[in-house]
């Protein structure tokens, strides 16, 4: 799990494209691509400015009909995927 105070920052190591209301990401290091829709797309757009994990969760439970405990699990998993692909960094201390 990611600590609420951890800061999530999107790296520059990607390309993104908007198709309709959705987003496709390309990790430039791995050449791996992802289609983002619904919650994942909202998280990505919200991360265009660095946020703490807690701020991100507040936003998600406000916009989507999801319990905070479920959001913690799902968003954490998504952020860890982005981190593994070099698309986001997670700092343990709040930098905001």
């Amino acid at each position, binding site marked *: 799990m990611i600590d609420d105070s951890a800061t999530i920052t999107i790296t520059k190591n990607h*390309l993104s*494209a908007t*198709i*309709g*209301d959705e*987003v496709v990401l*390309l990790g430039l290091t791995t*050449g791996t691509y992802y289609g983002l829709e619904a919650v994942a797309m909202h998280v990505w757009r919200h991360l265009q400015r660095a946020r703490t994990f807690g701020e991100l969760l507040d936003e998600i439970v406000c916009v989507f009909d999801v319990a905070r405990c479920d959001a913690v699990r799902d968003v954490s998993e998504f952020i860890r995927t982005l981190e593994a692909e070099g698309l986001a960094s997670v700092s343990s201390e709040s930098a905001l």
Partner: protein
Amino acid sequence: MAHSARIQITESPGLSKDGTSGHQPSYLAYGLALRSDVQFLNLPRLPETDSVDAFVRKGNELVSPRRPGDEDGRYVEGTAQALTIGWNSVGELHIASGHTIDISPRRGIGDDVLGPLVLGVGLGVLLAQRGEFVLHASSVSVPEGTVALLGFPGEGKSTLAAALVRGGFQLVTDDVLALRWEDGEVPRPRRGHGGLKLWPDALRAALHENESGYARVHPDFEKRMVWPGLVATPPPPLAAAIVLSPGLAIDIERIEGQASMIEILRHAYLPRFLTSVGVTATHFGQALRLAHSVPILRLTRPPGLELLPQVVKAVEDHMNSLVANPAQ
């Protein structure tokens, strides 16, 4: 890197500066002038010319031990601009800089086997190296434009293309579709080599012909090379891209949003060989442009070649309706 200018060759007597083994003929495929050691009996021969786009050269016999390969005995190594693709029972193609295909054949492998490999994977990779957007797709020309049929191996791209040709439409390409944006937002395909690779049952179902009399494309497979003769020249601009998928019923629906671009990226030609490199920024930009250019559709159908006539009709009807209702 794009290579738009043709390469001027000056030959010395008895020695070919291009490395081919002498005064070899030039052929036309995918709009490229190919000077080739491999003979292509079904390709248009170009007049004696020193204007050549790419060279196909046969080198020494491959004597190295067999290597680990995929389920087809194929192995891949190298980079996007210098790629080696090998088949343990056939030999290797070394494709470089969008300019050369060097072949190291195994003993006893002749042009009947090497030719389809050069025209398929060889030119597919070479065109991608030249900066073209190459998709793993067959395509046919219908009244509304060119329809691309995208699919993974075994999904029936060539079979459906053959059935559409039997239905009176013209073939554009088989298995390798190279797209160019020349004058506008809608890409135009390069005309392929005119052949179709079909399994015997697909040949019988789609073209109502027996496989006897058609050459195998590979010594280990029953697949045959067929030259239907109806080839669109020049191919019209792309009208739609149809992704072939298995399903419970025959249906065509539009793929919306990010999924449309993901499907295009999944069927980009070069990344499928270079899985270690994946999709590049160039492919990404080309796929985005294509997703914005034409409808991306999904055709689902149950397995069974007996359904081919209904599938052909579904494609025809849908393309017709696209003209009346472009949002469909």
